[in-house]
């Protein structure tokens, strides 16, 4: 029998013990990247029309965003720990399954964010004008 005051999970799987926010980091990067692309384009096209600089900037920003997402995705992949225990579902009511589930969800969100960021960067690659 364990006491409720003993917090055995808190040490072992501390990373998300207080918050769900972690799984949204990758989509948040997508959101920031998206808003920055849109804002910068609106500004450049309305003010001076320096499209080449804009495209370069979006390219650099996209690179940074993708690297950050890959890094988050890699961390989430390790947290999911699929290779070791081959557990795809993580459907038990244990601290370990909760920990791995959040890793799984964060990993999948990193994948979709990677795709989203790549899609949003395509216009800057393909379109060379504000018109």
């Amino acid at each position, binding site marked *: 029998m364990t006491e409720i005051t003993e917090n055995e999970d808190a040490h072992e799987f501390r990373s998300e013990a207080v918050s769900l926010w972690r*799984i949204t980091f990758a989509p948040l990067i997508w959101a920031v990247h998206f808003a920055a692309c849109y804002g910068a384009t609106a*500004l450049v*096209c309305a003010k001076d029309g320096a499209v080449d600089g804009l495209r370069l900037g979006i390219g650099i920003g996209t690179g940074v965003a993708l690297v950050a997402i890959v890094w988050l995705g890699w961390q989430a992949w390790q947290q999911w720990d699929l290779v070791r225990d081959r557990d795809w579902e993580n*459907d038990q*009511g244990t601290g370990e399954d909760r920990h791995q589930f959040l890793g799984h969800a964060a990993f999948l969100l990193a994948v979709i964010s990677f795709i989203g960021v790549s899609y949003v960067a395509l*216009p800057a690659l393909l379109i060379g004008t504000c018109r």
Partner: protein
Amino acid sequence: MTRPAPLPVAEGPYPPTEEMLNAPVPPEEQERGKAELRAAWKTPEGWRYFSAVNNTEVGVWYALTAFGFMLLAGLLALAMRVQLAFPGMTFLDADRFNQFFTMHGSAMMFLFAVPMFEAISILLLPAFLGARDMPFPRLSAYGYWCFLIGGCFVLGSLLFDAGPKAGWFMYPPLATEEEGVGPDIWLLGLSFIEVASIAAAVELIVGALKCRPPGMRVNIMPLYAWYVMVVGGMILFAFPPLIAGDFLFELQRSFDWPFFDPERGGDPILWQHLFWIFGHPEVYIVFLPSIAIAAMIVPTVARRPIVGYSWIVLSAVGTGFLSFGLWVHHMFTTGLPQMSLAFFSAASEAVVIPTGIQLFAFIATLMVGRVRMSLPMLWIAGALAIFVAGGLTGVMLAIVPFNWAAHDTYFVVAHLHYTLFGGMVFPVIAGVYYFYPFFAKKLLSERLGRWSFWLIFTGFNVTFLPMHLTGLMGMPRRVFTYPESSGWGTLNLVSTIGAFVVAAGFAVFVYDLLRPKSRQGQIPRNPWDAGTLEFSHDVPEEAWGVRSVPYITSRYPLWDQPKLVERMDAGRYYLPDAPDHQRETVVTSVIDAKPIYVQRVTGPAWITIWAAIFTGGAFIFPTFHIYKPAIVCGAFAIVCVLYWLWTSTARPPRDEMREAGLGLRLPTYTSGPDAVGWWGMWITMLGDATAFASIVFGFFFYWTARPDFLPAGTDHAIGTWVAAAALLGVLAWAATLLAREVNRRGNVMLARLALGLAPLSAAAAAATAWLAVRDLDPVSHVYPAILWALMVWLVVHLCAGIVMQCYCLAGSLFGKVTPRHDADLRNVTLYWHFMALKVLVTAALLGLVPGWLP
């Protein structure tokens, strides 16, 4: 000065062992617990019934009201279909046709789709989570009464021929210049309902995060709860831009401040941005909770756990994010730069991926399961078929050149009805059939259900499939008639016939829903053999929600925890009694659902109805430009809410601990991030900050979009007063923070002093903010107008902050707030953290940014 002892925390064994759960409960204990719970949760009778706040009552009223509004909006559509059946019809004149299509869209979105989500969630979420009720039942009731008043007001305008007629998205300049009160009714009536929506979102997010049963960690909570959390978050970030837009719009309508008037520096495109930043996520706000119903039905039908739980979570969260990057695809023809359009086109294509994933997860579950076809599944199958068709035309419309061609034609009408019928109407009806045994304790008719399905499914396709073609042949939407030479006559006639078939299907459904079923006898408790907690309900009905709050270790507890229901019924789990005859529920931690404390839940009250009536007055009088009664109503509304908070929330408890069952002792009071009130404030402030950010966005939007912003030689806000406002505002924040800290350390006198100083400082900040812009003329140009708007926004929030500080001061003086029981003070400090940020940003925009802009 001695430091007060900290509040007690939970103690005792947890998690419960199998041995503890097997110990029998003596029969007299069981009877005592039942009697106490019955007394605590008794639903008021007779005319007092309407003072009920229990989620099962409010949820049913909410759902029926939203459904009633939907039927009325459907009748408007039928009238429009009659008018369009033949070329040159004169059934409706142009003016009434305009009112009808505007009201059809507005009512379906604002009075049916979003409220229906809130209604269903209020009704079902506590049952999914084995909770007794939502954390803030009176807030749900208040939201419901606001919704009822606002909805009747907006729809009622049609009876006086005074309805809005500029279309459901109210584009200026058409809507700003429109004569009569139509647009004002739309703006104020719907703002009022939006406030109710945000209230419901706060309630639902806190419910899903904090009111789960012990043991239900995030990886095993029902998928519906994930969707509720995502959708609640989306409401928080989607509705505030619209509220900010409404605020600017109404300032232009009432006081001629030129936010959308290009002749004085305004820009109608700003409205389109603010509207669609709301409007596109809105589509997903409607879609996700409905597809969440499918996520509950599909495993039951397939008789196995859902395939790809994590993938569905990904899909819900991913769609929630990506849906905020789509809004400009409603604005492809406004002349924005090509590259900007392409960003939104790309994001619109990307959102298809998560949306598709969840549909594939459902199909996979059905493929590997042992499917037992049922009526709810028939509706889900219809939903998937229709939604996929709507999704495919959506992919087409997200491509800019095709969009230009199809823009504002019936192709768009067909597309949006396919997505909304497939994504919302069909799953919701499936949900009604599936959950009817839960909330009505009766079954709906299988035969009538099939009739209704095939009528609506056939009728729907007969109505809307031809519209793709009508649109491609060039028929614009929103025309009240068309010439015979156009060649659109036959297709329109087919659509009209189909619309009547849909109506017949709904008639069958309504009859089945409302016909008396007293001869049916008692239904089985779990008629579908579902695995989730809501089907542990009591038949015949008990008002207590759950007999005892279970300990959960599985995603499908009714399948995997064999003795669960028996133990719940015996009162073997948590809170099996109510010694004080008080309503209570267990509050648990966000991630792992460890019990933290026992939350007192508020009971029946009339005050919520009074608060809603006065809030209604505060919104409805300004529609007719009557301001004094509006201010009086607003003041009374505030008094009502304060009375309700003062008398029934966060009162220091008589007993600090409560025997919660299974040897666990839980505190009855907590403050700060453990408490549901703190979460309510935090979530509300996120929404409020979004609205503020939308106005700030407006400021910079004018700067990028308008060459005459800032206008040459214009007057600016007075720097000294701006600086004074910033300083005083920050001082008010610091005093509040100081009060919280010294109060916690037991120095009550200093805390009271700080709480006396803080409102004075805040009032001075409001006065100086006004002085800073007093000499500017907001009617002359958009620049002074937006400075005024920022000032008004700030002052209103400062006033709210002052009321809160005074509330805490009074609490301290009258023993409601003590060094140990400081929940109110901590929540108010949280408000003031956001307030300080607003003060600084507003001051920067008023005083600094105009000097920096090139």
